């Protein structure tokens, strides 16, 4: 037994054993079961194989497509908002202009929203987006001369509310990722660029952006994941999984409705498998294009 602890051959396997066990028991096995269940009609006490019926049903399910559209457009908009803005903020924080103290305070202030749970954030924003003309958001629109808005009853204003919550909670987090990436860039690159007479913009375009690509890839990956799997923000903002005309319904919300609320596990599994395929397709494509796997193989 003592030899085992000194063996360089056995050690790595013992080190990664917890991962293998976790992966097998809690991920691979349920994943396999999920795929099997997606081909079944599961009723209490009896289960029948129905082949691809759940998928056919899904294909003709108007609500599923609504949920898919909602999730996709939310994801797309979060990418548009939550990558460039935090990137610019990180570049500003990382620049040599301004006092480090103020920047330190700014960094902390930006990160603090991420510390709130989705429950607390949902409660606060639900009350700030209240229909009453005294709610904060309606005070703001009335300042610009508009009447009170029923934020959470209309499609586009509901989407706006979700995006505001996402931006509030995640701008600081993404900024931190970018900041970490920026600080890992060797200063020599900028010196060389300055010697070559590169302007600020050219330095950003030809040094910062290429050097930051792994970080951008990473943030993109987790953002696609976060966007496509979004559910709780909507769940909290609408105080449950039922929004008016399902304007806040997302894929995971639909999975939750079918699997937990209606207890139709087979159909819910099919929703889950489609979600997985969509996310993997998006992320694996962009990981391959960024050469991520090749580098990890080294």
């Amino acid at each position, binding site marked *: 037994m003592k030899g085992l*602890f*000194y063996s*360089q051959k056995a050690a*790595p*396997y013992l*080190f990664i054993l917890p*991962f*293998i066990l*976790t992966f097998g028991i*809690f*991920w691979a*096995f*349920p*994943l396999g*079961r*999920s795929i099997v*269940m997606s081909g079944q009609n599961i009723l209490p006490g009896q289960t029948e194989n129905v082949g691809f019926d759940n998928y056919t049903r899904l294909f003709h399910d108007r609500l599923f497509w609504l949920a898919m559209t909602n999730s996709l457009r939310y994801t797309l908009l979060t990418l548009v908002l939550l990558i460039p803005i935090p990137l610019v903020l990180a570049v*500003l924080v990382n*620049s040599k*202009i*301004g*006092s480090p103290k*103020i920047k330190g305070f700014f960094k902390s202030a*930006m990160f*603090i929203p991420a*510390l*709130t*749970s989705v429950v*607390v954030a949902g*409660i*606060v924003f639900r009350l*700030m*987006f*209240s229909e*009453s003309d*005294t*709610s*904060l958001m309606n005070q703001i629109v009335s300042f610009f001369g508009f009447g009170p808005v029923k934020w959470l009853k209309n499609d586009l204003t509901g989407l706006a509310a979700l995006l505001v919550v996402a931006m509030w909670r995640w701008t600081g987090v993404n900024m*931190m990722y970018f900041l970490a*990436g920026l*600080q*890992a860039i060797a200063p020599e690159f900028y010196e060389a660029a300055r010697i070559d007479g590169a302007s600020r913009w050219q330095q950003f375009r030809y040094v910062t952006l290429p*050097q930051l690509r792994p970080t951008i890839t990473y943030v993109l990956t987790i953002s696609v*994941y976060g966007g*496509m*799997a979004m559910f*709780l923000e909507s769940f*909290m903002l609408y105080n449950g999984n039922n929004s008016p005309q399902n304007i806040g319904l997302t894929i*995971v919300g639909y*999975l939750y409705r079918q699997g937990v609320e209606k207890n139709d596990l087979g159909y819910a599994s099919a929703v*889950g*498998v489609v*979600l*997985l395929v969509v*996310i*993997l397709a998006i992320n694996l494509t962009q*990981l391959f294009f960024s050469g991520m*796997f090749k*580098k*990890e193989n080294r």
Partner: protein
Amino acid sequence: MTKVKEPKEKVQGSPAGRIGLFVSFAIVAALALIPFWAMLVGTFQDGDMLIRYGLNLGIDPSTAHVHNWVMLFTDSGPYFRWFANSLVLTVVQVVGTLLISSFVAYGFAMYDFKFKSFLFILVLVLMTIPFEMLMLPLYIQVNTMGMADNYAAILLPFLAQASTIFFFRQFMVGLPKEILEAGRVDGVSEFGIFFRLIMPLLKPAMAAMAILNGMASWNNFLWPLLVLRSPDKYTLPIGLNTLMTPYGNNYSLLIVGSFFSLIPILLLFLAFQRFFVEGMTAGAVKG
């Protein structure tokens, strides 16, 4: 070669640029902090008023009162039970995840072995599989393992956590391998090398991961919502969510309880934040 001293470390930029930067930082920081102000103001108002009028930044001194705060500390029912449950779960989860995930990461970072690339790709793939997709089969799984309504079900699946493993691995790849050799020469076992020589070097990475995992655990909602059945096991987010019904003085407790729930995680963040960016940088995704 004499090193040319650069006149750098001082504050740079034109005054106009500095003021512009300061103003934009101030505006963005204010946007980030406004909801907290709104919440604080809300804790001095009746829950019924909040439901009817929503939240804003102003406060009417004639109706403001501290009853909600008094209620929180004298008559908040199970609130502090939820609080204690969340605290215990978060501490166990963070300590466990940091230990086990860094342990696994060490295997990936310092050794070469069969199937290493394949297994590491599994780690990467796992990072992109949404937990939400697996929650139902995982729920069935923990039920068949007899862990229904049990904290073990909340903890165990997430101790060897893909993103934390990945982060530690990135951090450790940057450590000098000579440490291992030195340890082996001194007759330290492979695990002794990890626990006694490597672990102390992981401080910044541990701090960064303590914050991120602490946040995730303290705020964890969906999975405990599925797993937990008995009200006496509820965590804070689940308990607070049960208050989102307009009965009695639920909303009064909801707003003050929400505000109070921020305190532990804020303390954790403030305690570790000076290591945070350093740790994130060291473990950052490298090209």
